């Protein structure tokens, strides 16, 4: 085992980068769970659609990927609103389990529609190329990729924007209110259906951002969204369902833990470590690490 501090620091950086992506996914899921008490298992598919749109804009039209991300977020956000309207709205109020079934149907639909759309562009895996792909800068003893720095900056800018939206606007207040108590908000004159749409749209847009960033640092395939999304579920369960703060801290922490676990235990543990953690937390502290809403 090489315990070189430079290597360990690189492992940490990678953990923070991948953790930011988990954070974006988990935040969207937590927001959605808070407002609609809904778990959208097709979150990973929205993520990959986002990645694919950014890929198309960047590779076909030559748009800078970091700008294309915003178009992709808008498009996937609208898709999220449509999904809420056409699929989840009709079954609202029926057995909870129907929502799980429906999102599994959505996984099949979106994943394979996407795979079909992928076919003409590349054989298996694609990667979004950025103009900074080969450039690094020195940070103390190690070199950091420009992409990593931009990715972290963009992620945090969006998170700050989300924070301002949630805590300093009227819409944000309505959204938090719905999350705390749906009926009471309704009685206070909040149009909760509009809040549902809004939450689904934001959640989908965050997934698109996560997917695009994932596609910049990793080769991706239409089927690549399932595992990150499932890890994000693990994160929001760990962080306490519906808690955005838990999603942020949990996502970052999880990325770092996964990065180190992969480094020390070997690659095939990368995907299982999430569930070992999840099982442990559910057994010891089933309410999650941070209980509470918003």
């Amino acid at each position, binding site marked *: 085992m090489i315990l070189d501090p430079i290597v360990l620091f690189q492992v940490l950086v990678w953990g923070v980068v991948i953790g930011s992506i988990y954070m974006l996914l988990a935040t969207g899921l937590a927001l959605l769970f808070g407002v609609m008490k809904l778990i959208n298992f097709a979150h990973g598919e929205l993520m990959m659609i986002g990645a694919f749109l950014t890929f198309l804009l960047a590779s076909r039209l030559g748009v800078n990927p970091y700008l294309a991300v915003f178009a992709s977020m808008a498009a996937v956000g609208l898709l999220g609103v449509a999904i809420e309207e056409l699929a989840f709205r009709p*079954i609202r109020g029926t057995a909870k389990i129907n929502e*799980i079934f429906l999102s599994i149907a959505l996984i099949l639909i979106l994943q394979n529609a996407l795979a079909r759309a992928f076919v003409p562009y590349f054989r298996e895996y694609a990667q979004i190329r950025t103009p900074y792909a080969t450039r690094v800068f020195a940070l103390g003893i190690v070199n950091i990729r420009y992409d990593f720095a931009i990715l972290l900056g963009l992620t945090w800018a969006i998170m700050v924007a989300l924070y301002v939206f949630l805590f300093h606007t009227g819409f944000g207040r309505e959204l938090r209110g719905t999350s705390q108590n749906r009926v009471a908000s309704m009685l206070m004159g909040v149009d909760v259906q509009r809040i549902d749409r809004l939450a689904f749209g934001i959640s989908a847009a965050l997934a698109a951002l996560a997917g695009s960033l994932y596609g910049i640092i990793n080769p991706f395939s239409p089927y690549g969204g399932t595992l990150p999304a499932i890890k994000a579920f693990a994160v929001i369960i760990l962080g306490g369902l519906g808690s955005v703060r838990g999603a942020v801290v949990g996502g970052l922490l999880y990325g770092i833990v996964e990065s180190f676990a992969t480094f020390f235990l070997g690659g095939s543990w990368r995907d299982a470590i999430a569930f070992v953690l*999840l099982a442990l937390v559910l057994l010891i502290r089933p309410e999650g690490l941070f209980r509470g809403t918003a």
Partner: protein
Amino acid sequence: MTRRFRRTLAIAAVMFLLPALLLAMVRELFILQILTFVFIFAIYAQSWNLVAHSGQFSLGHASFLGVGAYASVLLVQHLRLPPAAAILVGALLPAGVGLAIGGLCLRLREWYFGMVTFGVTAIVQVLVVEQFGWLTNRWDGLDAPRLVPAGLPLERVADLNYLIALGLMVAAYVAVASIMNSKAGLAFSAIHDNELVAAGCGVDVRRYRLLAMAAGGYLAGLAGALNSHTLTRHVSPGIFGLEDSIWPLLYSIAGGLRTPEGPILGTLVVRVVWEWALRRLGGFESLVLIGSLLALVVIFVPRGLYPLAAAAMSRVGARRRRPAGVTPP
């Protein structure tokens, strides 16, 4: 013998005789293969449905499918058991896995349960590949010997596989229907509807949830073993994927959740639509179609096809039985 059990036996007889007759008439190998597949995966869906009946919606059923297949193949390889015995003995291991997972998840419901069971499948895959790699040949997997004795002509093998799978499917149906109609079934149902109230009424929630997981593990493991000895003739870690955990759920929802007939009807219908679509449309489009159908079923016919068909049948029956001269209101 209660009325319900007589009804179960009657349905089981039809369920066995119709396909057996079909075997005498149809000689196309690919149709027999599709039907054999339907029988095997109906057992698998039956298992998922039984576990769901006790309020536990598993998203990791592939662990049982895979462990059953590995256990059976290893029993044949190392203990020289005949495959026909190995599938029945090997399925005890996934039953044990079911007990372990069930014990781990006793406090969990709905998506918590789904998430953890899904996660366990990922862990099982790693364990099979890494920890037991010396036994399981890692990612390459193991070849599974034929279920029936070697030396038979290929056509006879297909016929025998078909009949064995059919027989086991009918046996599983009778077993699950009996469980659902028994006191245990009532307990499952109570736990499904409201665990707290069930516990308050004296149902031993822990015991019955574990019972459902063990029985489900056994049946799913049996299906996995049967599949690897007849259709795939191979078992590899790919079996622990998301897809194999989703299919039984699809079949059960389409056919009718929490009825013993539903999973069988659902497997048949979905599989036939699937095979048709695959030939007409291509792989991606077929999966989109299956997904859309599932979404439509969930939105518009949440109880599934079997209750719909049963209601239509009884309506026809009622019309025929109506005495002459009496006008309906």
